[in-house]
C-alpha cells in the first residue's frame, strides 16, 4: 500500500468494487431491479448505467426467481454475473434457484459444472422499514453446503470482497447491512481484493471474546470501548465469512479469554449465534470459564415504530451487560 488514504463511504466502496470488476473482466455484468437508470435502491450503483450501458448494467423486471436463475445460468454459461437482490426478504422469491440450482449443480453433475455467480443483497434493520424489509436471514444461507456466504462490515471488506467473490468458482452471497452504507472512513487509495474466508480480530483483548459480523460489528466495538473503561479487555472478532466459519480464530480467542459472547442481528432461535456457540462447546468446552452468552434480535417481526425497532435489535448496553455477566459483574 502506498499509504495514501481517501475519505469514502461503504456505499462508494461497494461501487468502486463493482467498477473495478467491470473494468477488469469483460465477463462481469450486474443485474437486478432498478440497478440501472434508477441507480440502485440504496444508490450503490448510481452512475454505472451511464458508464457501462444497458447490457452490463442490466435492469430486470420484478422477477427475483427469474433473474437470479438467469444469473446462475449465465454463470454456468461462462459469464461472471453480479446479481443484486434488493433485500434479503425479497431473496426468498429466488430461494429455489439459489438452493436448488446454484448450490447443487456442481454436486449433482459430479463436479462437471461450476456456478461462479455473486449475489449481493442488503440485509438488516434500522431504517424503520418494518417487517418485510428488515430481517437478517444470513443464517439460512449459511446453512447450505455449496454456497459461500460473507458479510463485509468494514470499508476494506466492502471494497475488496467482491473481486475475490467473482474469482471464486462457487456461488458467493454477499450481505451488505443497510446501516453500513452511509458509514464513512478512510480507505487506502490502492485498496485491493481481500480474502473471502477467515475471521478478523478487530480488537485485541484478554477477558472476553465478543464474536460478531456485519451490522453489529461497530456496536460491538463501541461496547468493547465501554468495557475497557471498566478495566475489561474485550477481544472483538469479525466473522466476515459466515460459511465457512473460521473455527480456528474463534477457538484461539476463547482459549485466551475463556469467555465468549456472540452478537448477531438474526433471531436467537436457530441463529448463526447458536451455531458459533455450539462449535465452542464442541471444540473449546474445557477452556470456558463461564457460559457462552448471546445477544440477538428479539423474537418478533421487526416493528415499524422507532423505539420498538430499537428495542428489538442488539444494542450496545445489552452487549456490555452480556460481556460483564460472563465475568460475574
Amino acid at each position, binding site marked *: 500500500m502506498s499509504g495514501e488514504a481517501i475519505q469514502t463511504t461503504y456505499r462508494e466502496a461497494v461501487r468502486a468494487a463493482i467498477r473495478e470488476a467491470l473494468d477488469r473482466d469483460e465477463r462481469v*455484468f450486474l443485474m437486478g431491479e432498478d440497478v440501472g437508470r434508477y441507480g440502485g435502491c440504496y444508490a450503490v450503483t448510481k452512475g454505472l448505467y451511464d458508464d457501462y450501458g444497458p447490457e452490463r448494467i442490466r435492469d430486470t423486471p420484478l422477477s427475483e426467481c*427469474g433473474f437470479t436463475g438467469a444469473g446462475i445460468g449465465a454463470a454456468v*454459461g461462462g*459469464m461472471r454475473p453480479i446479481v443484486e437482490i434488493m433485500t434479503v426478504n425479497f431473496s426468498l422469491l429466488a430461494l429455489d434457484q439459489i438452493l*436448488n440450482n446454484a448450490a447443487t449443480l456442481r454436486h449433482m453433475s*459430479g463436479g462437471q459444472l461450476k456456478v461462479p455467480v455473486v449475489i449481493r443483497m442488503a440485509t438488516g434493520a434500522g431504517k424503520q422499514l418494518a417487517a418485510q424489509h428488515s430481517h437478517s436471514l444470513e443464517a439460512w444461507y449459511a446453512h447450505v453446503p455449496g454456497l459461500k456466504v460473507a458479510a463485509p462490515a468494514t470499508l476494506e471488506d466492502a471494497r475488496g470482497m467482491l473481486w475475490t467473490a467473482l474469482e471464486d468458482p462457487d456461488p458467493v452471497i454477499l450481505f451488505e447491512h443497510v446501516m453500513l452504507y452511509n458509514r464513512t472512513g478512510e480507505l487506502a487509495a490502492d485498496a485491493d481484493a481481500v480474502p473471502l474466508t477467515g475471521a478478523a480480530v478487530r480488537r485485541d483483548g484478554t477477558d472476553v471474546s465478543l464474536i460478531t459480523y456485519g451490522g453489529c460489528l461497530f456496536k460491538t466495538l463501541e461496547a468493547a470501548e465501554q468495557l475497557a473503561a471498566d478495566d475489561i479487555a474485550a477481544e472483538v472478532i469479525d466473522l466476515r465469512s459466515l460459511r465457512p466459519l473460521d473455527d480456528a480464530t474463534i477457538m484461539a480467542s476463547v482459549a485466551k479469554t475463556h469467555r465468549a459472547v456472540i452478537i448477531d442481528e438474526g433471531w436467537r432461535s436457530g441463529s448463526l449465534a447458536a451455531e458459533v456457540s455450539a462449535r465452542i462447546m464442541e471444540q473449546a468446552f474445557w477452556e470456558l470459564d463461564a457460559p457462552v452468552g448471546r445477544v440477538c434480535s428479539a423474537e418478533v417481526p421487526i416493528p415499524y415504530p422507532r423505539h420498538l425497532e430499537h428495542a428489538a435489535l442488539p444494542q450496545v448496553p445489552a452487549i456490555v451487560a452480556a460481556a460483564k455477566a460472563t465475568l460475574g459483574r
Partner: protein
Amino acid sequence: MSQTEPTSGTPQAHKLHLSREHALHLLREMLRIRAFEERCAELYTEEKIRGFLHLYCGEEAVAVGVMQALTPTDAVVATYREHGHALARGLPMDRLMAEMYGKQDGVSRGRGGSMHLFDAERRFYGGSAIVAGGIPLAVGLALADRMQGRDQVTACFFGEGAAAEGAFHESLNLAALWRLPVLFVCENNRYAMGTALERSESETDIARKAACYQIPSAALDGMNVIAIEAAAREAIAEVRAGDGPRFLECRTYRFRAHSMFDAQLYRDKAEVEAWKRKGPILRFRHWLEAAGMLDADTAERLDAEIERELAAAVDFAESSAWEPLEDLSRDVCGCVTRGEA
C-alpha cells in the same frame, strides 16, 4: 408460426426431405429410449435402481425430433423425466445406466441418479427435479451466449405443469424482453403427476400463454416425430438468426405411470389405451413399412443392435464401482484459486 391448433398428423404433410437413412435413425433413437426405459423399469422392481424413476414412454418423438435440429454446441436443459433427452442428445447409454444405478462411472458420478443427468461436454444441463426450475437456468445460458456473441441456441424442455409456476412466466418474459436465443419446448402430456390440465389451468392452451409474451408459438402433434423435427428446425433457425425465443407446445401422452409408485387413479384405462394406439413408435413404424423404408430384416437388425447396446450398458453399470465413502463430501465446493479463468 402463430396458430395454436395442432398441426396435421401425417408425416408427409411436412416439407422435410426424409431420406431412408434419416428415417431409420429417428426410429432407432426412439427405440433406444423405449428399450432403455423398459429395462430401467425392470431393474427398478429388482431394486437395482432406486429413488424416483419417471419414464418417458410415449413421449419419445418430442426429444428425438427436437434434438435433430440442434448442433453440438447448442445447450439442452431438461426435466426429471429426461432419460430420453439424454440418450437423444448422445450421452452414452452405458454411463447413463451407471448413473441410474448410482455408480461412480455414471454421467454425474452417481451423485444425481435418474433425475439429474448431466454432461458438460455435450452441453446437457440436466436433469432438474424442481418443476420449472430449469427454465430460468436456460434463460441464463442463452444470455451468456448472447453476451459472448456465440451463435448458439438453448433448448429448454418442461412439462405443461410448469406453466403454473412463476418461474415459467418470469423466464418467458425475460427471454422475450431480452430477445434471447431460447427454444422453449413444452411437453404437454396432459397430467401434472395426477392433476389433469383442465383441473389446474384456467387457460389450457399453453401455446397461447407463450404468445402473450410476444413469443411466436405453435402447438404440435407430439406423437409425430417428423412434424416435431420439422417445426423445431424452422423455429431454431429463427432463434439462431437472432429473432428471439420460440415456443413449441408438443401435445403428447405418457403411457406409463408418473413414477413407478403410482396407482393411476386419475385416468381411465381406455384413455391410456386410445393414446397407445397413437404411439409415436408404433405409428412411425407403420408409416415406414407402408413407405417401403422398413422391412422385417431391418427391423430385426435394429432391435438386435439395441438389445446388444442395452445389455452392454447393464453390464457396465453392474460392474462399475461405488464411489468410496471417503469421497462423500467431494464436489460440494471447488477450490478457490485466485486468478482462475
